[in-house]
C-alpha cells in the first residue's frame, strides 16, 4: 500500500514548481482551514475567501518554506494574519452605531450562542482557544502559530476557557437548553 506523502514533502515539490502537489495540500487542508477561520472570524463567507487567499499567499511565498518547519503551522500563521487584518479592516469600516453591542445574547440556537460567546472573546484568547480545542494544536504549536511564547498561549487559552465557562454556565447547567439565556 502506497503511503501518502507528508505535507512537508508535498510542499518541497511545490517549491520546485509542481502546482499539482500544492493542489493536493489545498484539498487536504482547505476544509479544516475554512472551519478554523469560521470559528475565528464568525463569518463562513469571509472564512471561505480567507482560506483561498491563504493558499494563494503561500504559493507566492513558497520559496520561503523551510523543510524542517511544519506545513500546517505555516499555513495557519498565514491564515491567522490574513484574518486579523480582515477583521481589523471590517472594524475600521464600521460606523460607531454599527459596532456590536455588549448586550446579553437573545435566545437563539445553540450554535449561535456558542459563536457569539467565541466572538466576544478578545482576539488572542479566541485564537488560542480555537487552535487548542478545535484544531488540536499543542500549546507549543499554538504559540508558534500565534507568534508568542508557549506560556502566553497557555495563559490565553486558560483565560478564554474561564470566560466561556462564565458566559455559557447557564447553558451547561441546564443541559444545553437555549431558552432564556
Amino acid at each position, binding site marked *: 500500500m502506497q503511503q501518502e506523502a507528508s505535507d512537508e514533502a508535498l510542499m518541497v515539490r511545490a517549491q520546485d514548481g509542481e502546482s499539482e502537489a500544492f493542489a493536493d495540500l489545498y484539498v487536504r487542508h482547505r476544509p479544516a482551514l475554512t472551519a478554523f477561520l469560521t470559528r475565528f472570524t464568525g463569518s463562513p463567507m469571509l472564512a471561505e475567501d480567507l482560506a483561498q487567499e491563504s493558499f494563494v499567499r503561500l504559493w507566492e511565498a513558497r520559496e520561503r518554506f523551510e523543510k524542517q518547519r511544519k506545513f500546517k503551522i505555516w499555513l495557519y500563521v498565514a491564515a491567522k494574519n490574513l484574518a486579523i487584518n480582515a477583521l481589523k479592516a471590517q472594524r475600521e469600516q464600521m460606523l460607531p452605531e454599527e459596532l456590536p453591542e455588549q448586550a446579553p445574547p437573545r435566545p437563539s440556537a445553540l450554535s449561535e450562542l*456558542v459563536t457569539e460567546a467565541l466572538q466576544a472573546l478578545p482576539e488572542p484568547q479566541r485564537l488560542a482557544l480555537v487552535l487548542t480545542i478545535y484544531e488540536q494544536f499543542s500549546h507549543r504549536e499554538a504559540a508558534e502559530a500565534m507568534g508568542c511564547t508557549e506560556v502566553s498561549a497557555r495563559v490565553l487559552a486558560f483565560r478564554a*476557557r474561564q470566560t466561556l465557562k462564565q458566559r455559557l*454556565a447557564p*447553558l451547561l447547567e441546564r443541559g444545553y437548553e437555549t431558552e432564556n439565556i
Partner: protein
Amino acid sequence: MRQRISDTSLEALLRRGDSAVEATEVSEAERAMLLARLAEMPSTGFTPRRRLSGAPTALFLLATAVGLAIFWPRLTPQQVARVVPISPHRVSISPHRVSISFLETVVTHIVIVADSTCLSGEPVPTEHIVIRGDATSVVTTIEPIEKTEVSL
C-alpha cells in the same frame, strides 16, 4: 451556588455548538480553479534567495559615510532659500520671490502658498518665511500668513 464547570463539559458544549462543522470537502472543480489561479500568477523563479555577502554591504556603508562627510549640507543662504515642494500640498512662491542668485541681503522673505487653494487659480499665501543670515549661519522663522502682514 453555581457548580464548577469542567473543561471537558465546556469542550463538549463548544463542539456541539460549533458552527463550522459543515465545512465541505474540496471538489475537483475547486481544485482545478486553484490550479488555474496559480497558473495565472507570475512565476517567481525557484532559485532560493541568495544571502548577500558582507563585502557589498560594507562597501555600501563606507561609500555612504564618505558621501555624507563630503556632501553634508553646510547651510548657506543659497541652499536654504531653495524652494522644496512639500507633499501633499502644492507649494509655490509669491510673485515677489527672491531669486537665489540675488540673495545677497541679510534678511529675505519668502511667501509659501501651500494649500488646496493653489488649485483654484487664485493662490492664497499661507506661510511667511523669514531668512536671516550671513555667510556662516542662517536662521529661518516660519509664521502663518494670517498672523503676518507681508510686505515684500
